[in-house]
């Protein structure tokens, strides 16, 4: 399979009070053409920052990529100038943001916002562009698409807004769609529609998708492979079947355990104790160790290396040191 995106040892740093805070600690993963990758992890683990890093959308913040490579179609995005990135954004890599309320310009009509990338990247003119926009809106399940074009974001419900965002992202047939929690704000029926739509688009147009979500149901439904992020590091990567069947990392196990399942008569859900550590104050060793039920003494001393297993699986955990894992250096 052909690789579309290869992220190597990505490190992203924010500056606060003149103090550098590393958010991503060397993230590695790749996306093949036409593949749907799920990026999961707890809130604050760095999922959104990973996606912003790929797009290099740090203007106006203190964030910057300090090391690592982002190979997209065999070109390193990390070294691209702002001008070059601009040609890629929206056209080759599109993004759906997590915050549907604030990510749309409140004073521009939906239509105007939607037409922007269409005109820019597809070069369509007035009427054609409009038709295209309306068809995309219909595709993402917006009722009264024509009318909505001339409405303002605040007139729409949260779900509708997110659908607008999705429409905007897929309007230029990107090669890679980064979807940061695209369906979180949607109800199940629309979620089903959207997921279905994303699947179709992905299959028809050989679009790759980086799906950031914490809804493991969505992951199971959609993804081919899953990357689990914890405190700015990939702790596990596996085929979706393997992951749900036999999660390796204790964190992954915890995540899968906390999902409420339909028909499950439990008074209390399982949950991972504690929460994601503060990135400005990370301790040595495995970042998950303080919350890990299986923590060993080595875990708080030394960071576990990435261990590779068969079937493209990898996991960073000392539990598997003795197993068949080959330590990649």
């Amino acid at each position, binding site marked *: 399979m052909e690789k579309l995106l290869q992220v190597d040892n990505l490190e992203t740093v924010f500056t606060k009070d003149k103090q550098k805070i590393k958010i991503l600690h060397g993230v590695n993963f790749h996306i093949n053409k036409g593949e749907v990758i799920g990026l*999961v992890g707890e809130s604050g683990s760095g999922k959104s920052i990973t996606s912003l890093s790929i797009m290099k959308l740090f203007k106006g913040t203190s964030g910057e990529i300090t090391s690592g490579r982002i190979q997209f179609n065999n070109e390193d995005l990390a070294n691209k100038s702002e001008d070059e990135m601009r040609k890629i954004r929206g056209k080759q890599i599109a993004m759906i943001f997590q*915050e549907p309320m604030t990510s749309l310009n409140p004073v521009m009509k939906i239509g105007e916002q939607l037409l922007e990338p269409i005109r820019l990247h597809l070069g369509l003119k007035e009427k054609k562009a409009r038709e295209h926009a309306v068809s995309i809106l219909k595709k993402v399940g917006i*009722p009264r698409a024509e009318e909505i074009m001339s409405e303002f974001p605040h007139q729409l419900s949260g779900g509708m807004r997110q659908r607008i965002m999705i429409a905007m992202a897929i309007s230029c047939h990107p090669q890679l769609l980064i979807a940061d929690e695209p369906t979180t704000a949607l*109800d199940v*029926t629309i979620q089903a529609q959207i997921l279905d739509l994303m699947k179709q688009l992905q299959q028809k147009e050989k679009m790759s998708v980086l799906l950031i979500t914490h809804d493991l149901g969505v992951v199971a439904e959609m993804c081919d492979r899953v990357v689990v992020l914890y405190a700015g590091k990939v702790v596990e990567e596996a085929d979706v079947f393997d992951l749900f069947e036999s999660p390796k990392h204790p964190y992954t196990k915890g995540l899968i355990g906390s*999902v409420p399942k*339909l028909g499950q008569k439990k008074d209390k*859900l399982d949950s991972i104790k504690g929460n994601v550590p503060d990135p400005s104050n990370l301790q040595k060793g495995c970042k998950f160790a303080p919350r890990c039920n299986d923590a060993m003494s080595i875990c708080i001393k030394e960071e576990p290396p990435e261990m590779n297993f068969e079937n493209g699986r990898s996991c960073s955990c000392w539990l598997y040191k003795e197993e068949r894992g080959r330590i990649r250096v």
Partner: protein
Amino acid sequence: MSNTLLKVTGLKKSFSIPDGMFGKKKTLKAVHDVSFMIPEGKTFSLVGESGCGKSTTGRLISRLIAPSQGEIWIDGEEISQRKESQLKIMRKKVQMIFQDPYASLNPRMKVRDIVAEPLAIHTNLSKAQRYKRVSEILEVVGLSEYHANRYSHEFSGGQRQRIGIARALIMKPKLIIADEPVSALDVSIQAQILNLLKDLQSEFNLTYLFISHDLSVVEHISDHIGVMYLGTIVESGPKEILFSNPQHPYTKALLSSIPIPDPRLRRERIILQGDLPSPVNPPTGCRFHTRCPVAMDICKVTEPSVKKGGTADHFVACHLVE
């Protein structure tokens, strides 16, 4: 049987929306005849499609907006037409958790002041006492003391929602209107929060109006569920009954859309055909008939009345149900 904390009857809300720059106004019936009740200490969940009026119902009950019609009884008091000045006591009893965690937090206030605000409004605790309570409650929702001194934009989405929950919990209110409180949370925290909400409920005898579109979450937390479609509740009942024996075609469709966290169980979804009709021009007859897979002729003409759906507490508005 415990007493009823919240009772809503015949709630209606229409917005007038301008039609273009110079056109006449149009009426948008966001909530159209909603009735339900929640016994004290129980959880009632509203589920339904985006734009069907869930949040509006929540905003009506918390009296952020005034209903066009209907009654709202909270803790034995009717508040639907009260003036703002007469609502303060009610506001102490009722707290909200908002759908959009970021926008509902004042970007210029530190988290500790955001969370302490209800205390500042309703109590005369000293600043130190308030901050102490804040530290406690932050830990309860899974944040730490060191977060208190920051601004909301420095948090990730999930952390922000926890701030919102902490703010709602700090007053130990009687009724919490939770508008999609966990949809922005990742599963582990979602589980924590759901557990927490349940714990708090049993500890303080809290009552929840829980708004969500995540049926698995809803199933976990609720006692009763109301399924909303285009401003009305089309089916409501105890969760066991609703999940095991859904009567309304819309409920059925909803249930079939839930993604199941097991890749082996991928299935063909029943994806509803057609768009959600506009609440400005709702369909005649049964509001669902335009998308209903089993619609009959009568559905287009007559609005179905609410009928008992077999068991007690189970109500359905569908012509198919006898």
